[in-house]
Structures are given as structure tokens and as C-alpha cells.
């Protein structure tokens, strides 16, 4: 059997690497002097700078937004949140941060159809199961009702803001470390922190400030609730 002659269709003569890359390939070691750091005291000529940082856990001291108030990759809004994070109570659990954070904001006090006309209200409504949250100003709020004048005698507009869970609904009640009292009277302009516990065991920490936006008159004062944080603590 005679084998056919091999016919070369073409030959490949191209270089594997392009010229500019070949120029950067190292010469054989024997043809190069070893690189030697200059100077009798090389440390004087040494420059070391940080180019990047990757957080593994805990605090990132070079975080561009909050070099201190950050933990485990999350930027925190307050030292209290940082304390909770350090204690292991994640201040921003993935399963609740979106819902409760809906109450971080402000709302002007409003009136209630079932209360005297000079009374003003704001409220925080929390679903203890889904942790959805909403601010309201109609005299209701299962987690907290903010009322002016407070329920404490002599019930003057200038007394501050009475704060209490809606006990007609009975879903939430004050819990430690807050004192379990009938009503907390909060001063206007003061940052206040209260803890409430739902009947299903969910505990929430609420930080707020009530600002007076209008003078106290016979028809009642004008107020604004500013909620700075609502976080599940248990």
C-alpha cells in the first residue's frame, strides 16, 4: 500500500507572544545582576504605604465613611449600635433591618377624633411578627404613643411628652432596661431611648427626640417626632 505524500497546507511562523510582551519577559538570571537594595541603611530609603484594606471581621479602622462606627462590614449609626454589635446583638439583622428602618424618620403630631382638640399625638406601629414599622399621628401606635399634654397631672402643654405603649391594644409593654411605668414623660429636644417588649417576646429599642415646632396655645402645641433608630434587640 502506498501512502500518500503529506502535503503541508501551511506553516505557523507567528510568535506566541506579541513583541511588546516579549520585551517584558525576564532575561535569563545569569545575565542579570541581582537587585541590591541601595544604601548602608536601607530603612532610610524605604517607603511603605497602605494601598488597600479588606475587612475580615470586626472594625475596619480605615473605613472611608466611619472609621470607628463600623463592625463586620456594616456602617453603624450610633455608639449604642456599636455596643450592641460588640455584644453580639447585631444592630442590623438581615431579617428585620428593612422593616424597622421604615420608622427612622419624622412625623408631625396630629389630633385624634376620640381625644380633646388640644391634644396632639404621634405613634409607632410595629408588627412584632413581621417587624414592619410605620409612624402615625392619629392617636394610635401599638409600640409607643406620644401624647401632649402628657397624662400626668396637671396636663399642661408645657410639661413635655407623655410616652407609653397602647395598652388598649396590649401588644407591647415597657421592658428593662426601661422602667416599667405607666408613662414616661420625655422632655422636648432630648434624645430618649426606650425599650418595649411584645407579647411574642420580641424586644425593640427605640431612640427618638420630640421637637416643639409651635408655641403652646389654648388650641394645643405643635410637635414633631424624630425617630433616630428602631432596632430589634432580642
Amino acid at each position, binding site marked *: *500500500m*502506498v501512502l*500518500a505524500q503529506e502535503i503541508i*497546507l501551511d506553516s505557523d511562523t507567528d510568535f*506566541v*507572544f506579541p513583541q511588546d*510582551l516579549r520585551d*517584558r*519577559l*525576564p*532575561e535569563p*538570571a545569569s545575565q*542579570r*545582576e*541581582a*537587585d*541590591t*537594595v*541601595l*544604601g548602608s541603611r*536601607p*530603612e532610610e*530609603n*524605604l*517607603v*511603605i*504605604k*497602605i*494601598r*488597600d*484594606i*479588606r*475587612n*475580615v*471581621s*470586626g*472594625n*475596619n*479602622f*480605615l*473605613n*472611608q*465613611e*466611619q*472609621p*470607628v*462606627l463600623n*463592625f463586620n462590614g456594616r456602617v453603624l449609626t450610633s*455608639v*449604642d449600635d*456599636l*455596643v450592641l454589635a*460588640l455584644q453580639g446583638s447585631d444592630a442590623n439583622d438581615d431579617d428585620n433591618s428593612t422593616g424597622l428602618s421604615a420608622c427612622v424618620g419624622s412625623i408631625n403630631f396630629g389630633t385624634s377624633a376620640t381625644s380633646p382638640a388640644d391634644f396632639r399625638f404621634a405613634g409607632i406601629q410595629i408588627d412584632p411578627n413581621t417587624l414592619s414599622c410605620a409612624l402615625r399621628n392619629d392617636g394610635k401606635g401599638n409600640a409607643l404613643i406620644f401624647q401632649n399634654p402628657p397624662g400626668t397631672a396637671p396636663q399642661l402643654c408645657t410639661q413635655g411628652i407623655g410616652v407609653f405603649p397602647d395598652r388598649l391594644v396590649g401588644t407591647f409593654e415597657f421592658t428593662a432596661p426601661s422602667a416599667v411605668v405607666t408613662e414616661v414623660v420625655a422632655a422636648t429636644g432630648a434624645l430618649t431611648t426606650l425599650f418595649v417588649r411584645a407579647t411574642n417576646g420580641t424586644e425593640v429599642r427605640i431612640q427618638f427626640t420630640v421637637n416643639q415646632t409651635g408655641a403652646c396655645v389654648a388650641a394645643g402645641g405643635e410637635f414633631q417626632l424624630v425617630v433616630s433608630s428602631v432596632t430589634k434587640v432580642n
Partner: protein
Amino acid sequence: MSVAIFGYAQHMRALSVIPTPDALPEGAEPVANVAPVDPGKIDSALGKVAGAWNTESMNELLTDDYYDKSRFQDAMQTEVPKDARLRMNTFGAVQTLQQMIVDDGGQRVRVSTVSAMANTQVEFNDPKNGSLVVPGTNELIFEVREPVR
């Protein structure tokens, strides 16, 4: 009698890209052998970082291309308590990732990229919560520049 039958056929050879090293920056030379950076130099650098943190000197310890460097500088001024201090606890896993020779104004400089793991803690006093210690573990990427012959 047997007859050999041949068919001439062409086929497209698939283009198989041969992996090549990442291109060095313009003007940079590769090193023949990577000389690992002495971990003692990284230890010294971390000590400088701890001392310079929360001071103006910290800016000099970040490269110009550190991500959002100006924002970090602003945050140090506005967000960090004045009494906050950084403490370096331990470090390890020092690795020289890349090395090259560049020309810096006529001087050949060996530029090394080095990674190291550092355990740190930020300490500060809060009026409400008292003295706080905030630990952290981070991988730091250093740029080390040494003039060479």
C-alpha cells in the same frame, strides 16, 4: 486493485488563548526572582500606622490611589472622637504578592505589593457607654518601595 481515495478538507483551528502574565505598568521591568519583603519591615510599618491613626500624619501612610482617600480624611476629621486611638495587637501571614522595578526620576526602585493580616483595636471613651474597645481583623495591602542598584 485497491484505490486510495483522498479528500482534501480544510478545517478551522480553534483559537486557544495561551495564558500570559498580567502586563506590567508602562516602563516597569519584571524581577528575575521575587525577593520577599522582610516581615520586620511590615511590623515597623504597622507600628507607624497605629501611631499616626487619628492624626494628620495618617495621610502620608496611604498611597495616592487608596480608594476614596479624601473621603477617609474627611471622616477622620468629622466622625472619629478626638481621643480615639488605634492599637496593633498582632499581625501575620505576610506575603509578597508582586514585585517589579520601576524608574523613579532616574532611580531604579523595586516596588513590592505585600499583604499582611493585622488584628487591631480602636479605643475611645463615650460619655454614655464609657470606655470602649472595638476589635477588628483586616488584610492590609502594602506598597513597598526600595531603591535598588
